[in-house]
């Protein structure tokens, strides 16, 4: 892509999220969200493949519907309460509408159906931007609304963890697996939103680091399905040894970083007297763990059929920068002992 156009689009993405972060008026927040949608559309369709165009169209339609609902809800709130402050939204009708609109924006169940297909049609870099950066702005809004509808949030959260777990079970396409993993993680984030927004923020940031590592690993191996992943031992053996740790961190196993948010969420839910919810969420995390384990199994514990009896193929140095991958992998694996410091940082 022309570097000037690429720069404009990336700056537009950054500007949209920043505007939403900095806004206290609903219209400005909506504007930031719309800028994000519009800026990422050319990035998604840049390869002119019919599947990419299909993914772009589906993304645009869902995001536009969500933005329209958001605008409608904020106007309803202005009509009912006479003010446009984001943090002063108290009437249950606009709050519920805004929660559902933002759930559609990020892909929470039961509004998740667009996410696997859209991610499947994109290349890995754009998929990474979609899974990470595009979730920041809606979450900034979600964290600021006073959640008064506890049942809605719990239902959204539990449904997302379950659907994210069940849906990812028989997938062989990596991007669809990451989509379902995103749905499951978002479910965990929403579960604890009304009790402790700082834990939601912590889960979001941990998810970003883990997903960033995973996408970069797949990009380095140029793999989009499980069978191609199985040949990564010949391309980057050290990375193939580390990737199961990244995947297990996504699955939430101690002593890796991914355990930190799950532990804090389960603790908070139990403190609030929602032990059955906590149990159900933990059990549904097992489903997600199954498909992460399956990826680790395919990648590191088995060798795909080949006819190389002993010699390994030429390993050319990768043209991709490995510094971001190295940093995020280190953070994905080693941050659990810093839990107290990180919770202290994020709690206001």
């Amino acid at each position, binding site marked *: 892509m022309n570097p000037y156009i690429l720069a404009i689009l990336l700056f537009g993405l950054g500007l949209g999220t920043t505007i939403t972060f900095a806004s206290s008026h609903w219209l400005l927040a909506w504007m930031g969200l719309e800028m994000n949608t519009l800026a990422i559309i050319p990035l998604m369709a840049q390869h*002119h493949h*019919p599947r990419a165009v299909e993914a772009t169209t589906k993304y645009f339609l869902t995001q536009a519907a969500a933005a329209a609902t958001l605008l409608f809800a904020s106007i309803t709130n202005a009509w009912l309460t006479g003010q446009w402050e984001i943090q002063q939204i108290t009437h249950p009708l606009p709050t519920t509408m805004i929660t559902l609109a933002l759930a559609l924006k990020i892909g929470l169940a039961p509004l998740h159906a667009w996410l696997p297909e859209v991610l*499947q049609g994109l290349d890995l870099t754009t998929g990474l931007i979609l899974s990470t950066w595009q979730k920041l702005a809606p979450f900034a809004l979600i964290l600021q609304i006073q959640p008064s509808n506890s049942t809605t949030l719990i239902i959204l959260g539990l449904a997302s963890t379950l659907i994210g777990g069940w849906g990812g079970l*028989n997938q*062989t396409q990596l991007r669809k697996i990451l989509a379902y993993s995103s749905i499951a993680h978002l479910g965990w984030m929403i579960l604890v939103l009304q009790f402790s927004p700082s834990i939601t923020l912590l889960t979001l940031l941990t998810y970003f680091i883990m997903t960033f590592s995973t996408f970069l690993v797949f990009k380095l191996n140029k793999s989009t399905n*499980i*069978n191609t992943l199985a040949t990564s031992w010949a391309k980057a053996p050290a990375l193939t040894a580390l990737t199961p740790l990244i995947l297990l961190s996504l699955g939430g196993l101690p002593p890796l970083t991914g355990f930190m948010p799950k532990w804090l969420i389960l603790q908070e839910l139990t403190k609030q007297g929602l032990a059955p919810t906590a149990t159900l969420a933990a059990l549904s995390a097992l489903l997600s763990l199954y498909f992460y384990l399956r990826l680790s199994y*395919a990648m590191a514990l088995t060798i*795909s*059929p080949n006819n190389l009896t002993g010699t390994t193929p030429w390993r050319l140095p990768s043209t991709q920068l490995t510094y971001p991958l190295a940093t995020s992998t280190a953070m994905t694996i080693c941050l659990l002992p810093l839990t107290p410091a990180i919770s202290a940082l994020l709690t206001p």
Partner: protein
Amino acid sequence: MSLPRITHLPSGRLLSAILHHQRLLPSIIPLTVPKRAVIQGEYRRPGQPRKAKFPWKKINFNFSKGLEGIKKHFTLLKKEFTDRWVGPEGKPIVEHMLEQNRAVWEFRGPESLGEWTVSSDREIGGHSEAYLKLGRNNNTCFLYGTLSSTPPRDGETRYSGYCTMRSKQPLASFDRKKHHDWSSFNTLHLRVRGDGRPWMINISAETYFSHQKDDIYCYFLYTRGGPYWQDVKIPFSKFFLTHRGRIQDDQHPVWLDKVNTIGFTLGDKADGPFQLEIDFIGVCKDYAHTEEFAYEAYKRNPEV
């Protein structure tokens, strides 16, 4: 209307003729786009019924057939649920990872012919014929017939003489579309015995917009005429994109995770009988084939 004739018009009519300028230049360009049926032609897609019947006339209420249908669809639905416990596509993950060859269509009995639709230019009024039957010992399929390139006398068709055999779209329970997932493979492997004619293999993938309905990825199949079987291996990177038979400028490789149908077409402008015998159609993974796409696209606005 040509210029000399315009000058003979009285001025009032000339003014109205300028306002209705379509009458002024009728034969050069249509200034409005004609509707899609006119551009794309009304012709019966192969496999569709001959006469357009009213929906209420299509109802054929038969109790036992209805019961059979319900049983079939619910069995398929149950199979879908139970297959999920086994693994992707109903096979354990180990099998999915180890799979390097898969015979997708094998012609071993009369029910295998029901998965294919045969058609020829008879649909548009031509004179070619094409038939499909099982070959010797019920082991192969035999596509045979006669090509005739006499165009139909309808005043607009200029060329004719083709016949084709296309697989039917796989369906899940309750007639929902299912797709072939060939993403673990990269080569098409056929075992055919032709008659020396050049055939074309058409792969149709799942599309989203209605104007992509006729997007087909094609490649050639050159057959030898001999009595010996021919193993043909064509990498999927060689398939190029066409739309309604015309090669497109904006090429891209075929994505194998949602393949709908495969077809064989013969249209080599040679009148006379033809035959093609197919033993099996399979896909395989050739680890030595690393090419992603065989055709490079030229930069449309190169920097000079």
